[in-house]
């Protein structure tokens, strides 16, 4: 019955992006027998696509920078909903984590003194992002991958985890996790991992939207599996729409244009040629934002005597502004606005500092960005919501389960600042790996895998083959994406969210009738898509439900029917749990920030 290929480990890390690799390295170094499992080949996770940089207050360019300033920027960017302790640890530990990458072979761009260079990004007071041109994520993932391989950590690639396993046949619910169930993409055969600690590092959920910078991997597997195993999800309503995605040609719609374009001097204009961001400076950021072009332009060279350009406001603000301009009929020919770097920097500078953007537009859009403006519009990019974890250990609410990276919640509040993800992966990856190893070392007994859980997981995975139904998994997925895009997108309304929830119910029914055609279990993407649908539907429902509950606008959650930010809502997180397929949304007070940190927000800047 359940005699599938099986492996024993102390710690199994699900995901080989920046957070998973860093966690695995830490767990291994702490003495745990560790395995990494990932859906794609090693080195292909989302982290590879990150462009702009890693935020860390090293003070290489602006000696005034320090962790307190970074902490403050992060909290304000997240509209104060961030878990303060995570934001603090993140700001304090990010520099060491970046230096460590250098020790493992990363080659960052340099300052004149030979230190790691740092660039400007939205919401960061000082130039703070360590970078390598605009391919920072590639540098980071390759460095960590090479480190992990050098340490000899076991890697199971193209191997997809579908369920967490528990001790008593309830999939981890109410007891400790004891392992995880997976299939090999190559053969379709099953594997059980027996491990007392599982670290979820599975990334985000962006595949549930039509216009997205995310890939097929972002079906929210980690979010959903944690929920099914009894863990709680935090603030799932907060989804970041990056202001600048490509809009033309249709095949690249949603593809990311890095914020570095604006960090390097690029500006946004509408069809009248106007730099419209000056019309959208919110009260909250007025004091620190330039209100005229002369000051904004002077800021690039002199941060001290000038305020920052409004193009570098946090992403939620810029995305909403672009959305409004397009709605008001001042958009570009293909339904975006213009992002102009050509008139602002020399062709050589653009090619040197933004090589992959140059390449991307040239190859895919027939646009030479050294000569012409880009057309841009918001694209689904990142989920702030995620698995609820303890700030210091990244432990989820189920024993033995850990979460790190984009799949975890709390760190970024209602809106993430650019560059704060890559640093998040490193800081909390290390912490998660160490605490998971510590947890296993301290266990009096190892949890046994419940055979019933394994059997249930196997049955579930094979169900689409036996299904007499006629639904095409790709068609169900496409309909889900379209509903999420139009009803749960960047601007939301109560009645539309209600419709979305009804549609999701209908899609769940259709998903039960999905059948898989074709040549069996070996590398069959139709089957993989059918299985991915379960998680996509679960996270989509979480997002819609939380969005309906939070009757205010804040960060990555904008309600047309509740446009104001409500101080009362600023005191609570929304926590989602699941029982027998039914979601429950609860309000939970935010953890209280200690006074010494509170004082950082009283200074006027």
């Amino acid at each position, binding site marked *: 019955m359940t*005699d599938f290929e099986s492996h024993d480990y102390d710690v199994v890390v699900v995901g080989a992006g920046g957070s998973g690799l860093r966690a695995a390295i830490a767990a291994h170094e702490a003495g745990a027998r560790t395995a990494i499992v990932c859906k794609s080949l090693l080195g292909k996770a989302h982290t590879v696509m990150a462009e702009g940089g890693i935020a860390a207050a*090293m003070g290489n360019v602006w000696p005034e920078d320090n962790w307190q300033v970074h902490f403050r920027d992060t909290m304000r960017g997240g509209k104060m909903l961030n878990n303060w302790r995570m934001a603090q640890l993140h700001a304090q530990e990010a520099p060491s984590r970046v230096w460590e990458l250098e020790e493992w*072979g990363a080659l960052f*761009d340099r300052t004149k*003194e030979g230190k790691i260079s740092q660039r400007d990004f939205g919401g960061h007071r000082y130039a703070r992002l360590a970078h390598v041109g605009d391919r920072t994520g*590639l540098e980071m993932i390759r460095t960590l991958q*090479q480190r992990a391989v050098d340490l000899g950590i076991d890697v199971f690639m193209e191997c997809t985890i579908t369920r967490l396993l528990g001790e008593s046949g309830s999939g981890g619910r109410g007891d400790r996790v004891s392992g995880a169930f997976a299939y090999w993409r190559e053969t379709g055969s099953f594997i059980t991992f027996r491990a007392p600690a599982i670290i979820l590092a599975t990334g985000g959920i962006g595949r549930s939207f039509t216009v997205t910078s995310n890939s097929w991997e972002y079906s929210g597997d980690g979010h959903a599996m944690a929920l099914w195993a009894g863990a709680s999800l935090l603030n799932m309503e907060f989804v970041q729409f990056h202001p600048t995605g490509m809009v033309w040609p249709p095949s690249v719609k949603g593809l990311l244009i890095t914020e570095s374009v604006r960090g390097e001097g690029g500006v946004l204009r509408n069809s009248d040629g106007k730099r419209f961001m000056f019309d959208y400076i919110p009260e909250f950021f007025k004091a620190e934002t330039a209100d005229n072009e002369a000051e904004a332009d002077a800021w690039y060279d002199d941060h001290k005597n000038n305020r920052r350009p409004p193009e570098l406001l946090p992403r939620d603000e810029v995305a909403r502004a672009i959305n409004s301009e397009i709605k008001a009929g001042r958009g570009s020919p293909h339904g975006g606005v213009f992002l102009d770097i050509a008139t602002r920097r020399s062709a050589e500078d653009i090619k040197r500092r933004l090589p992959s953007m140059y390449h991307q537009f040239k190859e895919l859009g027939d646009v030479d960005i050294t000569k012409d403006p880009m057309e841009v519009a918001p694209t689904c990019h990142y989920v702030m919501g995620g698995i609820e974890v303890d700030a210091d250990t990244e432990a989820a609410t189920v024993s033995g389960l850990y979460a790190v990276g984009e799949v975890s919640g709390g760190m970024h509040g209602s809106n993430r600042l650019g560059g704060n993800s890559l640093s998040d992966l490193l800081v909390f990856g290390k912490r998660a790996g160490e605490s998971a190893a510590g947890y296993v070392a301290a*266990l009096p007994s*190892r949890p046994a895998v419940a055979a019933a859980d394994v059997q249930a997981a196997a049955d579930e995975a094979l169900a689409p083959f036996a299904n007499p139904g006629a639904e095409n998994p790709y068609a169900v997925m496409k309909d889900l994406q379209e509903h999420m895009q139009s009803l749960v997108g960047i601007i939301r309304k109560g009645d539309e969210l209600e419709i979305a929830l009804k549609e999701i119910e209908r899609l769940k029914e259709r998903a039960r009738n999905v059948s*898989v055609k074709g040549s069996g279990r070996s590398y069959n993407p139709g089957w993989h898509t059918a299985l991915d649908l379960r998680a996509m539907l679960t996270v989509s429902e979480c997002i819609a439900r939380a969005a309906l509950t939070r009757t205010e606008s804040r960060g990555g959650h904008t309600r047309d029917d509740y446009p104001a930010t409500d101080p009362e809502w600023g005191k609570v997180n929304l926590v989602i749990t699941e029982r027998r397929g039914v979601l429950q949304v609860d309000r939970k007070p935010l953890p209280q920030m200690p006074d010494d940190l509170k004082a950082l927000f009283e200074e006027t800047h």
Partner: protein
Amino acid sequence: MGHQQSMRVWRGDASGGDFRSYSVPVEEGEVVLDAIHRLQAEQAPDLAVRWNCKAGKCGSCSAEINGKPALMCMTRLSTFEPTETVTVTPMRAFPVIRDLVTDVTFNYEKAREVPAFAPPHSNADGSFRMQQVDVERGQEFRKCIECFLCQNTCHVIRDHEENKPAFAGPRFFIRYAELDMHPLDTLDRRRMAQEDEGLGYCNITKCCSEVCPEGIHITDNGIIPLKERVVDTKYDPVFISLGIGRRKQRRLVGPGGGSGPSPIKRPGQGQSSLRSAASAGPASGATATPTFAPAPPRAPTAVDKVASTASSAASKVGTAANAESMKTAMPAIGAAVGVGFLAWAIRKTRKK
């Protein structure tokens, strides 16, 4: 602006297969990968293909398009005549898993053989200093997205499975070059590249550089300088006086180090005999003792640096063992692909 695109896609697996013809509606601006995705969604749900970023950043979607090794996500359909049939086949140098997906384990095994960056001291305080001009040379090679198109194209292994154990391929020559050019690396990697990794097999045809989607000058900036430095080493009196000529077992840098059981797991390699879960009892990690078997890697010292340059033919044992687990190249894709590639290669040579 759209049109019906006629496509020929190789469908099959390790046991064989052949071309299937399709007609698929495509839109302006689309790339080959879009057409493949539409086929998947509407006509061939089980068509196997790898992809992630759709923007030439991850190196997943490598294939041969009308014989030319290329990324599917970066090949615009507008580069062909609307009436032209676009033929897509899997990379030829690697064993087919299914349809357009190949088993690229070879490359991950080769990656293990490269000893890691060995810095002179810790950087816990951020004390490393390097100048931009000095890092730029290495940065060019670190642009590599590991699409393995160069590996697929290199004639040394493309149709010569027997060369694989001894030849790391262009992707890994530039990895050696990168580390060799790293301002702070303390290992000498020239002999390793030459003797363990088969740099000598390369006769500088530059086919690898032609196909690199990142435009890395693999041959001119990587392989040729590395070859020159290898020659320098051979006649370097310092090395001779250190007795480097003696053949020694290659030293392992890290438990990976290119030998021993591979940490890159493949289907079915797990424990076949099931240990009962219940009998697992107290965790092996219940005490503070590490449960990981191989000794933790030693920080390489200057002595290692010298020792590791002295390698021998015997050190190939590890790689040969790896090769055994590698499947043989896929003859099943058949002559058709070979002809397409040949045509592309000839066109390319004529251009020169």
